[in-house]
């Protein structure tokens, strides 16, 4: 025998109503889970997992090598510095840069969700804030997570920095470098994604923006003897140079970014982050929302 529900009636809601901060938190969480492929087709989950694997696999291999090598000198020779590690996660960073912000911003506009979001307690600014935090958090998974894993594992093996003071200093540098790489890249991806509803176009624009800016800056520096400050227009190289400077390491570059002071490099990264962030905000303030 089967039961049938004919009318459930209406129940009014008298429970808690959380404020606008809760709305921002909900949107942030939804953004991170969406990029992670939750309740999405299998290829979305796979792409996310593979990108994470690309970023974390080198760290896991280096931790294994450190466990096998007892000689400190040999270990120092084989293991990369924290600044150098970003060379191993370049592909993962570019992949996330190309997919995360377009997946969130372009999809919200194309699917009509932006209209629903802006009819909720979210404002245009709080919407952008929640989405920017989600993009930065996912980017930080590959810019911050692997070096942090390396630091923790090496410290536990006794192959990490000496003493609590050094460990804390390296920890602060790892966090700073992770944020320093994630922030300008995330801001660039938000700015590009704010210009089109098409995910593919935004992804292509982001990759082109990174590669073309790097190519043009390097051609100007090497062939046209442009001043070193032009290196700040290398949007691909700048975040990695920031990581090297934060870790107090020496740049491999002789001209451009490598010849600039640490303050100029970090200042440049902050300036690009602010410029791209303000551009994305400006676009969304003027965006006509479909209702």
């Amino acid at each position: 025998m089967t039961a049938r529900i004919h009318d459930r009636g209406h129940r009014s809601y008298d429970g808690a109503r959380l404020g606008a901060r809760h709305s921002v938190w909900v949107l942030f969480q939804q953004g991170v889970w969406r990029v992670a492929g939750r309740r999405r087709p299998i290829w979305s989950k796979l792409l996310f997992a593979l990108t994470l694997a690309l970023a974390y696999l080198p760290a896991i291999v280096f931790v294994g090598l450190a466990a096998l090598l007892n000689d400190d000198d040999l270990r120092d020779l084989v293991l990369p510095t924290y600044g150098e590690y970003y060379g191993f996660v370049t592909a993962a960073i570019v992949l996330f840069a190309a997919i995360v912000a377009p997946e969130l911003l372009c999809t919200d506009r194309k699917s009509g969700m932006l209209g629903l979001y802006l009819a909720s307690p979210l404002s245009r600014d709080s919407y952008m804030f929640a989405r920017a935090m989600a993009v930065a958090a996912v980017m930080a998974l590959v810019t911050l997570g692997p070096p942090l894993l390396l630091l923790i594992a090496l410290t536990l093996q006794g192959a990490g920095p000496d003493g609590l003071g050094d460990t804390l200093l390296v920890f602060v540098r790892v966090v700073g470098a992770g944020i320093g790489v994630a922030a300008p890249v995330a801001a660039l991806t938000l700015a590009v994604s704010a210009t089109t509803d098409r995910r593919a176009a935004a992804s292509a624009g982001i990759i082109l923006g990174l590669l073309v800016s790097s190519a043009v800056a390097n051609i100007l520096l090497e062939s046209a003897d442009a001043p070193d400050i032009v290196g700040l227009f290398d949007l691909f190289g700048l975040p990695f140079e920031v990581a090297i400077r934060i870790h107090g390491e020496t740049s491999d570059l002789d001209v451009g970014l490598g010849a600039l002071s640490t303050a100029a490099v970090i200042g440049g990264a902050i300036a690009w982050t602010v410029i791209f962030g303000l551009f994305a905000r400006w676009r969304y303030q003027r965006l006509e929302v479909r209702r």
Partner: protein
Amino acid sequence: MTDEAAVVEAEGVVKRYGTTTVLDRLSISVGRGITGLLGANGAGKTTLLGLVLGLHGRDEGSMRVLGLDPAGAGPEIRARIGYSPEHHELPPDAQAAELVRHVAELHGLPRRAATERANDALWQVGLGEERFRPLGTMSTGQRQRVKLAQAIAHDPRFLLLDEPTDGLDPVQRDEMLRLIRRVGTEFGMDVLLSSHRLGEVEQICDAVTIISDGKVVQSGRVDHLRETDAALLVEVDDPDALQAALAARGLVVERARDTLRVEGGDVAVHVRDVVAEHGLALRRMAEARRSLEDVFMEAGQ
């Protein structure tokens, strides 16, 4: 003193985009129950909804929504409003229950309560069995219901429905209108229904506001707007004789086939006397009620 029962109260609102004045000293009072917002495309309906939601600033005038000024309290107002947009696009890979729960959470409900109420709302709109289906596999009618479900799930005080029957066939349209009527009467939510379809507003709305070129041209209870204008519809066995006699008494008589529409003072007394004098057989005498279409046409649409 403003009407305390008014959900939306606006006085002399002006909204300009550049040199274009979209709302021109618009004054409106949306009371309890279901109110229809009628107007042609470009009349200013969407801009008005945007102002109600606190999404745009106004250039002049005052406005209160649920007792608050949307210019400064947009998030607080939006937390208490349910909104169903006109467009049909929804994330194709999201399940109906997932979307409705997400919107309820955005409106401040904790996760568990949002999940329960999302399921309840989808049952209320007749999609209980379909709630785990991806939205991309749903028909336009089902998506319209999902839009209504996400608007009511957080138990808002006030609902804004923008063209909720757009894209529906006549049967689906009637079902949707019954559903909206039920929401507006049984769920304790006041409704502002933006539409360009006179029939549906006439069918379910308690009141109507007609806007044209950014101004309110008619506003009031639907039954008041349709009220008799002191004209009578009369049918007798010899309409020619009746028409001539009434015209001779100075009354305005219009004829459509065998039915006479008579206007003027003391129409009923004149008709009675003429019928008696000429020995006519009176078949029908009724108040001439205007349709909402008449009101709309008179408003210069």
